């Protein structure tokens, strides 16, 4: 595994890399032209970016490629990804692109592509886009049909209109909410929400930053524990939320200062949404907590487990009718709800949690403590690609007494306990996840790590 291979990834998920050493201007131009070729001719494309400094360069290249293919561009400037997706539908655009590396560190950047309805491309569509990119035969138009750029500065306002139609901001005014923006785009929405709705979002790390973020922008319990959780009690906040840079993911801190596992966002929202959508489905990947099944069973819902990764969730969604689904998401704080036509939206997820507090009259820690205790352990081991099949075979034989699933890597279930070993799609590592009802499954976790390491 060379260094170069770790700095650029071109896949069904789009284009992602470390700017300079991996991701270059030429990749951006070609991907933009490929997307411009992929979309229906003539339609407008919505473009926005997160605050990374490299986003300035990438935006220029993206605009050039789209204009050259005859698409007009609606330019939102610095904008949260859910707002970009919202604007695609509102402006009836042919598609959209979000420039930003979300929860990755500042030196990374990425392009995320959206179709006409504002949702991620399906795997089949993304495959077509990739083929055009590799073929490099782009549908450039002649000089009379080249597109033009129009700036749009009402996108956040219109997005807030839509949020206000789905959530009762007036009722949420009573909460004192602490938010760690991690120098990302969530501050743009929340500051405006305070002005417009009188809500009390207290923002930390709210300054938009292009180069140095206050901390690692991942939505994990560890990141919540850095600055957000310790401030909860001193500021007497009712709930705490941490957003990644482009605001599509969220993590939580309870009012007593406890950093909450990122795994809990999905079960919390399932508990909130299932009672009003009895019998509906929750789409989750096979690496997220088994608490979901318990909560689903309580409300007569059902969990559909899919492979890890955005594409699997997107593809699963498209195999059901929207009214069959209550919720879809991952154990990373990325959750889609039907209210927003299934878009990963950290802001909407936060408002749903706050609405839950309001409607139940309970505190966040009271709600969380009412759930059976599950303990999850996550680890990772650098991989040697050649030996992965042998590793998975070996583990499968060793743990053949459990229920085996090979949907994505290897998952083995026993009553009240499971583990999942899989290869990361974004980094050259093997991920090991182990969960148990009650106390942490330390012994199982350690022996799994040891076995995986023996193949490295």
């Amino acid at each position: 595994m060379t260094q170069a291979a770790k700095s650029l990834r071109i896949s069904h998920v789009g284009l992602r890399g470390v700017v300079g050493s991996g991701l270059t201007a030429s990749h951006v131009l070609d991907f933009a032209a490929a997307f411009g070729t992929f979309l229906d001719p003539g339609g407008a494309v919505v473009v926005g970016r997160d605050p990374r400094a490299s986003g300035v360069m990438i935006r220029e290249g993206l605009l050039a490629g789209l204009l050259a293919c005859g698409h007009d561009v609606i330019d939102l400037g610095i904008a949260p990804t859910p707002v970009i997706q919202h604007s695609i539908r509102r402006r009836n655009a042919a598609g959209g692109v979000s420039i930003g590396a979300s929860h990755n560190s500042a030196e990374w950047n990425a392009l995320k592509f959206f179709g006409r309805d504002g949702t991620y491309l399906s795997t089949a569509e993304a495959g077509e886009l990739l083929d055009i990119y590799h073929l490099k035969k782009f549908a450039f138009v002649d000089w009379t049909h080249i597109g033009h750029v129009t700036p749009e500065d009402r996108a956040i306002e219109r997005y807030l209109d839509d949020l206000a139609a789905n959530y009762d901001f007036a009722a949420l005014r009573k909460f004192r909410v602490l938010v760690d923006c991690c120098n990302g785009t969530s501050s743009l929405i929340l500051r405006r929400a305070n002005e417009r709705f009188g809500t009390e979002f207290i923002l930390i790390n709210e300054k938009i930053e292009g180069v140095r973020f206050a901390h690692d922008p991942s939505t994990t319990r560890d990141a919540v524990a850095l600055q957000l959780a310790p401030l909860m009690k001193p500021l007497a906040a009712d709930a705490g939320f941490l957003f990644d840079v482009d605001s599509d993911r969220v993590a939580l801190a309870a009012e007593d200062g406890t950093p909450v596992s990122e795994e809990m966002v999905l079960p919390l929202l399932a508990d909130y949404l299932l009672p009003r959508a009895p019998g509906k489905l929750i789409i989750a990947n096979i690496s997220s907590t088994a608490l979901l099944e318990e909560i689903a069973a309580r409300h007569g819902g059902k969990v559909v487990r899919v492979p890890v990764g955005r594409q699997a969730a997107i593809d699963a969604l498209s195999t059901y009718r929207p009214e069959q689904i209550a919720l879809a998401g991952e154990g990373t704080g990325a959750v889609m709800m039907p209210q927003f036509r299934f878009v990963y939206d950290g802001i909407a997820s936060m408002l749903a949690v706050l609405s839950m507090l309001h409607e139940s009259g309970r505190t966040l820690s009271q709600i969380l403590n009412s759930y059976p205790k599950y303990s999850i352990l996550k680890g990772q081991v650098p991989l040697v690609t050649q030996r992965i099949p042998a590793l998975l075979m070996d583990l499968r034989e060793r743990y053949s007494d459990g229920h085996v699933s090979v949907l994505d890597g290897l998952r083995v279930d026993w009553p009240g306990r499971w583990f999942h070993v899989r290869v990361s799609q974004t980094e050259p590592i093997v991920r090991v996840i182990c969960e148990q009802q009650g106390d942490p499954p330390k012994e199982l976790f350690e022996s799994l790590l040891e076995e995986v390491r023996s193949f490295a």
Partner: protein
Amino acid sequence: MPREHLLKIGVSGIRGVVGDFLTPGLACAFAQAFGTYVGAGRVVVGRDTRSSGEMLHHAVACGLLAAGCDVVDIGILPTPTIQIFVGDTRARGGIAITASHNPPEYNALKLFNSEGLFFNSYERGELLDLYHQSDFRRATNEEIRRATSDYVTAPRLHIERVLRHVDAARIRQRRFRVALDAVNGAGSVMTVGFLRDTLGCDLHAISVDPTKPFPRIAEPRPDTLGDLSNLMRSSGAEIGFAQDPDGDRLAVADETGRVLDNDDVLALAVDAALRRLPGDVVVNLMTSSVIDEVAAAHGRRVYRTPVGEANVVEMMQAVKAVIGGEGSNGGIIFPAVHLCRDSYTGMAFLLERMAETGEPISALAARLPRFYRKIGKVAYEHGRLGSLMQALEESFPGVETDRSDGLKLILPAGAWIHVRASNTEPLLRMAAEARSEAEVEELYARVLSLFD
């Protein structure tokens, strides 16, 4: 049309038909090579009014930012205005997105150094090698700088420079009735302001909408300026000006609506310049001998260069010339304003001469020595070029020759013959000039006879 002419990447930069040939990817890569060559710092980007300009601007900005440069967008402006801004603000360099007088489906990148001048021929070679090697600087997130815009400073700097060398009050006093055809190009807004507001002219303008396509052939020549001639007659203007899409070239019509010979326009500008400042003159070797006569009247020397603005500019720097240009394509270069083709200096010079002398422009032109020119082209077979040139030289034994660009035979009394192979087609371009129509016909016929 042969495919290869639709894209040309060479020491002059990159030029082609936008779409399948001049792609955003190529423009971005070329800009990144440029940014690598000039180094991290401010790089100015401006453009003419072509519909592909906005798209190419973004591609160029992407390449420059990727190389770690600060991008300063100065919007739609004439090329000389862009060059002056680069020099005056001491940027690392500048890029003008314009295909000058080429048809609207074309676009190109013109590249300038920190003084706002063309790179010399050696530098241009280095830059081209850098492009071909794809050996670009690739800035990281920490190293990537910003893109900013400033649409007002550049026109002001340019006009201020021109006004330092003309008596604007004198021109304003006359309240000249002036016609303008800006071809809906980069001069559309600025030239109207310059002639009407700065020089106080009673302006009658056509084709000054930068959002519209070019309404005529972009190159301002007598045969493309019918609309201007008509406007002259209907408005009763005393002088008419026509620009090309990027506002560096100038054509002039007299009060009768007749479009002047571009060599004569240059001669009038040379005369105006030499009345102001002492020094020599540089023109390309196809420019009329009228320049030599005008320079001689001021006791000044004329240097000749191969065809091409960059060649003229390079020589002008070397000999510290006070004026120069290329007759046939309407380029007037007055280094005291800036070492670039500048239609604004040309317009101001002619208006000032009219104010000074009180004479109509037709009379000023009529007082220039009269020369007659005939140009044409003929197909030739590969491999025969050398023997043709030799035969031509032998048929005029003992005359002075210039071989810097094809073959020029310098005959007595300002007559000359020039032949050179076209860079783009298997054609020989021929030109002859003499003091009488009969003589020029005879010279031209002697050249043609060599092809029998």
